[in-house]
């Protein structure tokens, strides 16, 4: 996949590019958008109450540092703030982690303008014996276009946990490319989307197992209403020699609107012999008998639907290892539903 460069419209993929089949960027963006203006932002964001260091990009411009090296036990709030109308901006950031460090990376994509185009690149290195918990909360306007690509290297013996939570946008894509070093490197790669209106989100991931005995656990859940569209593309590659790999991928979605759509493409590519890999994918509606049961006990139909939907999605939230971040996500999602 060649990287999207907002300055060069020839890099905007259309649905004819296989990896962008369900997320046709060219349909909504044909030309380089005018550059977004500089804006001032105050420190904060959805994770502000959790403290720690802050690195922020306002319309693509770094407010202070544009790189970070984590050591010891640290919390970093990484904020991508868009406050623009009809313009575009890009940013890239590099996060390094020292061996033995424990980093909680709280990433927020905050959009307050309208019709903007944002393009981000995140690089993250997790060395042996380091532990990174990355929580990505994306809250953008319905007419925004955004793409974020994360390249993560997890060395043997590292722990990497990622949860992406999004409400979608006009066209939104979150890509994660993870080089999995093996040797019991434990990776969790979760996702959650709750879309309504005409929103679109695309959670794409490629996990490449290069070493022995690597573990990956991936759970993505989503709900789409109205004419919203959710895309899940999960690929796990087990390279030759990566024996003992244990990789599991699940994607489960609820379609709550007759014209809503889910496109799911789970892929396993296995070149090693002794591996345990599985993927499961289910798409359906709320369970009618559960809905009736709840109504029979007095819970009105709308409330019953909301409760079941929430319970369905909370499985992903409950897997967030950081308690305070979990609560922020839980409240955000409850308000969204």
């Amino acid at each position, binding site marked *: 996949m060649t990287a999207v460069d907002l300055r060069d419209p020839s890099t905007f993929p259309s649905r004819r590019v296989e990896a962008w089949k369900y997320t046709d960027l060219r349909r909504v963006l044909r030309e380089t958008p005018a550059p977004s203006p500089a804006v001032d932002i105050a420190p904060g964001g959805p994770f502000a109450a959790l403290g720690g260091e802050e690195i922020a990009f306002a319309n693509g411009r770094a407010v202070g540092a544009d790189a970070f090296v984590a050591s010891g036990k640290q919390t970093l709030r990484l904020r991508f703030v868009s406050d623009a109308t009809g313009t575009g901006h890009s940013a890239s950031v590099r996060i390094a982690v020292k061996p033995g460090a424990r980093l909680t990376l709280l990433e927020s994509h905050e959009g307050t303008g309208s019709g903007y185009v944002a393009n981000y690149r995140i690089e993250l290195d997790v060395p042996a014996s380091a532990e990174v918990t990355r929580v990505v909360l994306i809250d953008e306007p319905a007419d925004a276009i955004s793409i974020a690509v994360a390249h993560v290297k997890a060395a043997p013996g590292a722990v990497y946990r990622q949860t992406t939570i999004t409400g979608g946008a006009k066209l939104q894509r979150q890509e994660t490319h993870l080089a999995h070093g093996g040797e019991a490197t434990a990776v969790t790669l979760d996702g959650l989307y709750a879309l309504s209106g005409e929103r679109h989100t695309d959670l794409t991931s490629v996990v490449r197992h290069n070493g022995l005995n690597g573990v990956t656990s991936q759970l993505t859940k989503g709900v789409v209403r109205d004419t919203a569209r959710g895309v899940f593309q999960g690929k796990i590659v087990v390279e030759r020699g990566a024996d003992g790999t244990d990789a599991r991928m699940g994607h489960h979605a609820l379609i709550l609107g007759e014209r809503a759509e889910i496109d799911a493409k789970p892929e396993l590519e296995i070149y090693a012999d002794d591996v345990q890999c599985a993927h499961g994918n289910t798409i359906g509606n709320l369970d009618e008998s559960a809905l009736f049961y709840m109504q029979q*006990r007095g819970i009105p139909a709308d409330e019953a639907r909301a409760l079941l939907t929430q*319970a369905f999605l909370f499985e992903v939230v409950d897997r967030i290892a950081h308690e305070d971040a979990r609560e922020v996500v839980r409240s955000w999602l409850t308000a969204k539903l």
Partner: protein
Amino acid sequence: MLSINNLHVSVGDKPILKGLTLDVPAGEVHAIMGPNGAGKSTLGYALSGRPGYEATEGSVEWKGEDLLDLDPAARSAKGVFLSFQYPIEIPGVPALTFVRTALNAQKRARGEDEVSAPAFLKQVREASKALKMDFDMLKRPLNVGFSGGEKKRMEILQMALLEPSLLILDETDSGLDIDALRIVSEGVNALRSPDRAMLVITHYQRLLDYIKPDRVHVLAAGRIVASGGPELAHQLEAEGYDKYLPQAA
């Protein structure tokens, strides 16, 4: 108190209840017995308003009010409670949360004050103790991983907490061993009162040794074909349902 008159109910295009008439006065327990496929469970679903169970003819009055016009939650707020033959699992919703949500929704619908968390917990502790249920189990998602007996106790616990006035028990004895049957029956008997009516739907007489009915009705091919006192249940146990099948056809 409950007055069912010439009720016809279809599931899809298939008529299941074909002119069922039944009255249950306040304070009484009536048993509905009948062969498999007679429409026993359909009666429970029709009274509680399950979608897909369409009343095509007849009426159901509860405390003088037409039930058939109300949605399931509104019927529940009026006191209708169906204890399911196969209680449904609700993943992700702890049993305590579920029951409290239900209780408060009913109270809101009736214009009453909601119950506070401490008061609710106190009620739950007492009710679960009486049913010999482990309180910690109620923190788990409702019915998920519960045994058949635990699910039935959970139904009775909800009944005790929601305090319905029309109790419909659909095959409550199925899947229960003798000890569980006794505990569950005691739970049900504790709810007998002059302001409540109960319909006990069962295939076997066994349950009626524990929950003594005032009247017994035989439901066959969608209608009540015989009614009598408790002795009718014993007679059915001895003779089976065969003699009701031809005349009901």
